[in-house]
């Protein structure tokens, strides 16, 4: 097992951990962090795969994807945090209410 493959496996592990946390935890900050961890997992996989395909030099395309992905994740996180704060200000709790059947 070479280093790149190891990093890719760690990335998949992070993705799964994040998914688990996203589903299990109720607090919105934890959910948002979970999404960020999933994103980091994917980025790690992309970086690791860049090494594997590139030979000596790393392949620039996945790296460019990671940079773009980070930009997108930052804006998404900002939006999510703002929404969470507004929701907490309105309801007093940073959690989504249980779904009610009407």
């Amino acid at each position, binding site marked *: 097992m070479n280093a790149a493959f190891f990093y890719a496996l760690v990335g998949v592990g992070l993705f799964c951990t994040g998914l688990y946390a996203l589903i299990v935890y109720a607090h919105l900050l934890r959910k948002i962090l979970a999404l960020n961890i999933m994103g980091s997992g*994917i980025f790690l996989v992309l970086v690791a795969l860049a090494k594997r395909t590139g030979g000596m030099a790393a392949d620039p395309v*996945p790296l460019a*994807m990671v940079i773009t*992905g980070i930009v997108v994740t930052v804006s*998404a996180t900002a*939006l999510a945090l703002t*929404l969470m704060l*507004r929701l907490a200000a*309105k309801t007093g709790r940073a959690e*989504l209410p249980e779904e009610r059947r009407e």
Partner: protein
Amino acid sequence: MREALLNIPWGVALILLPLAGGIACFLWQTVTTIVGLIILSAVVISVAGLAWQMMESGVYRHAVGGWNAPLGIDLYADGLSLLMLTVTALVGLCISIYSTGYFEPKRSARFWPLWLFLLAALNALFLSADIFNLYVTLELMGLAAVALTALSGDKDALTGAMRYLLATLLGSLAYLFGVGLLYHGFGSIDIAILAQRVESIPITWAAFGLMSTGLILKSALFPFHFWLPPAHASAPAPVSAVLSALVVKASFYLLLRLWLEIFKPLGAEGVESLLGLLGAIAVLWGSLLALMQTRLKLLIAYSTVAQIGYLFIAFSLAASNSVTAWYAAAYLTLSHALAKAAMFLSAGNLLHFAGQDRIADLDRAVQRLPLSVTAFALAGVSIMGIPPSGGFIGKWLLLEAAIQQSRWGMVAIILLGGLLAAGYIFKVLGHAFTQVTVAPDSPIPSALMQWTALLLACAAILLGFLAPQVLSLLVIGDPFSTREVTL
């Protein structure tokens, strides 16, 4: 002159115009409405230009900045993209005109920049030929849509928007993972190049699973529909119309595109049957829940869940190389977009009039708002699939495909879904037609708001008469057959 017009890169204009307009609206908040309406008219003209160009010279391909794939990012449009762009422009124009009457000035200044960004994302999504670029458009679309959902700022809207945001981010991440795997496996992110290189190896299957799951979550197929009703029901009326008519369709379109171009050779029969089964459940479950709702906007939102089920039934029938079912999917997408936008807009009018949207309190509506109730009823005709309407053509094609393949269970579900749709639409109309002797004064929405809803509903009906023309546009570039892609 003619040559000059034929050489204008209309596709680029379709993305740049709303993007520039969105930024302008963000910077100068006093002129938003005027800038927005000018941009929307320009978008309609650009779509017409693109359509003309494509009728003259076939598919549209534009190498942005003069860089060809694999290095550059290509824009590509065939008949399917063209129809999606057309319906986006039409629905977008009607919604924009409607919103000039719907929002007060302060809220209008917030609505326009987000809506124009959303429009730019939708147009870019329909035009992209590069799976990573598609990821970026998906995210831009999702973020703009979530912000629009939260526009009213009350508790329901914020909760709905938050749920929607979590679902849409999860969907995009899964999609991005798939993009990374496909690039790793085949060394390209251009759809046409991938189509040539793809083969049935584990990494393709993993990418297929991740991307499909992400997109299914975003298109709210049962059982991933949990986020849709609260978000669509709590958003302002023009936003609900955009979300139900266009945003959900965009992720379905992307799934269709990926399937047709990249994943078809995998021959995943099990997956197709599963999607068909989920679609069938969605039709029944969505319609039943729609019947049980007491609030008008939630009823319409659950009806969207049911109608998305039809799209996936078409998907499953089409997978065995049935062109009829592909046509059905495209036709249902178009007619549902028009009809559902009309429904949400007229629901917005009824809400404005009654002050709340409890269905039982809709009495006297028909006496005071005949145009809006007519719009709702005409849109309902298309949703139920009664001739002559766009919805009828779509369901007819779908039934034909199901009968050809002797899928009698599907036939039964398609018919039953139509009956249930009739149930929930007449439930609303029944209350709307109640006579009251004392009609208290309620605010009547402006004529513009009533006529735009009616216009969209009429377009949904008209689509039933235009089948040959629409289908002849659809086959430009032959999006549905097993073609050989030439580079």
